[in-house]
């Protein structure tokens, strides 16, 4: 009887410990990730860590290039975007915006804002429509003329493991982003560089 009671208490304790462990395991958690330092990949597809790597490499390349004419001051660039030729809906505008931001902060390049061109014209029209005192109006004909066009193409190649008996499925994704600066006066490609990312992911085929 005494033995049975000890066993009963032991079983109860074990059950309680198991419950605590299970409850801890099931608890929802939130972790803050620092996009500037952490590298996180959940699968083989493009993510913010890739964007960070791409932006960093292109910024370094552009800051260190000696191929551009800097005699008349800092080169002035207009961005024409990065074409997305992958099979994923990737916002490539985010890449070109971040490269522009890094270059502006480094102080080596100047940029004209193509996206705001129409708004700037509307604003100038408004100022000259009689609503703004003459001394506060902008002076027309003072916009910067760009020396270079910054444009590029993001491509991908995806390969899935062929169908066969296996416990995991593997997927290989290769991304290549080409970026180039075209001299607007001469049409010459004055600078070009490429960043490549290849990644393999593995996922189980059988789960609970």
């Amino acid at each position, binding site marked *: 009887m005494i033995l049975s009671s000890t066993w009963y208490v032991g079983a109860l304790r074990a059950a309680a410990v198991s419950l605590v462990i299970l409850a801890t395991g099931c608890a929802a958690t939130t972790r803050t990730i620092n996009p500037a330092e952490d590298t996180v990949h959940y699968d083989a597809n493009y993510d913010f860590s890739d964007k960070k790597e791409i932006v960093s490499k292109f910024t370094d390349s552009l800051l260190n290039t000696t191929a551009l004419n800097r005699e008349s001051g800092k080169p002035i660039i207009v961005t024409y975007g990065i074409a997305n030729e992958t099979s994923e*809906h990737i916002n490539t505008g985010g890449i070109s915006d971040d490269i522009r931001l890094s270059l502006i902060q480094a102080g080596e390049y100047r940029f004209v804002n193509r996206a705001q061109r129409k708004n700037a014209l509307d604003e100038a029209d408004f100022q000259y429509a009689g609503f703004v005192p003459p001394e506060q109006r902008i002076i027309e004909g003072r916009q910067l003329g760009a020396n270079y066009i910054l444009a590029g193409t993001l491509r991908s190649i995806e390969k899935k493991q062929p169908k066969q008996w296996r416990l995991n*499925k593997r997927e290989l994704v290769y991304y290549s982003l080409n970026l180039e600066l075209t001299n607007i006066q001469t049409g010459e490609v004055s600078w070009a560089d490429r960043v490549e990312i290849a990644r393999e992911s593995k996922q189980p085929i059988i*789960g609970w």
Partner: protein
Amino acid sequence: MKFMWHYRAVLLCAAVLLQGCASSTPLNNARNQFFSGQPQAALETLNTQSISKRNALLALLDRGLIAHTAGEYQQSIDAFKSATALLNELDYISVREQTTSLVTNDWVTAYKGEYSERLWIHTFQMMNFLLLNNAEGAAVEARQALQVFDEHGADLKNDWYSRSLIAMSFEAAGKPDSAHIEYKKLLDDSGRDKGIARRAWQNAKRLGRAQDADAFKQLIESETSSGDDGELVIFLQAGSIPPKISGEIYVDPSLYASFPVYPDISQPNLSIAVEKDGKNKSADVVNVQLVDISREALAARGKGITTKQLLRLAAKKNIAQSVSGENELLGSLLTVAFMASEVADTRSWETLPAHVSLVQIPLSSGKHSLNLLVSDSINDYSISLSNIDIAPGVKTYRSIRVGAGAPRIEEPISTELTLPTP
């Protein structure tokens, strides 16, 4: 004691069996609302009511299609993107689901869609992006559609509609070389369709492929009028796809297996004509009956379905025999319950149209009013297209659904329809 155990087992099986056959009421309600011409009410039902996880994909597919029909193209894109993400999540074999389905039926498993339905997610996405003038988005979907063709091309190759849209999306995104490859493959497989040949010829000219352009030109009966520098592209959907039905194979009078099939009903193709100022206007038309593609895709899964049915039959028979050995009455009850649960999984994307047609009408730049005359051998529809703005060198897109699932017009005039505002 043993009797109690068996009694509990039978009760448990009955509970699982009943759950296995339960259909989704919100999904059925949304479909009824859609087919009675109320797409907004159907969307409200799908957005607000809870739908079981195993039918989550069907809810997203219906939401995407209904939003498209209602002219809510961004909402449709979001729903189809979620459907694609869910398909990736579901791309594994669930031990729990498969074990349960072995003693019940496939209704207890999460619906993963037929190969054809996976393709049509991208087909509707290409249409959505083109309608929103986002050619790059359409080209991304075209590449995803090509991945489906890479895996299941043999069963889907007759879907000329999706294949034409792939080429069209590449053209729109300024990728005439990719479009050229798709047009060439299409012409080889379609028996040299004249409508496709015209597209291929125009694209080859743009690409500077003179030899190919000459070869394609020989397939065209008449050239487009030189004044037609723009084009109206209509994505036409008519009727509703027939749902899957249950087929049965009897092993003996008390033992049978059920499996899903598409009804073998042959329907004539849509007849489509375009009128402008009371005169016929030439148009290139690509017609596809979706059930033909669905039937082939389902047949391709036939081997897998048969294997699973045989395993299920063996499992059910063994369990029933084992229980009968202990208690004959319970064994008989279990046999009846297993037989009752032998129901084919006939779930499918039921809001799909029966026919899809790509109608390309060359037009000069400016404003145009046209009549589209559509006949599906039972009903005739006259669709009035007013003040369509055509720009030089640009394709203008419209999507229309007629028949079952078409949005109800408050004041119907016979069978005349007007377009929803994009």
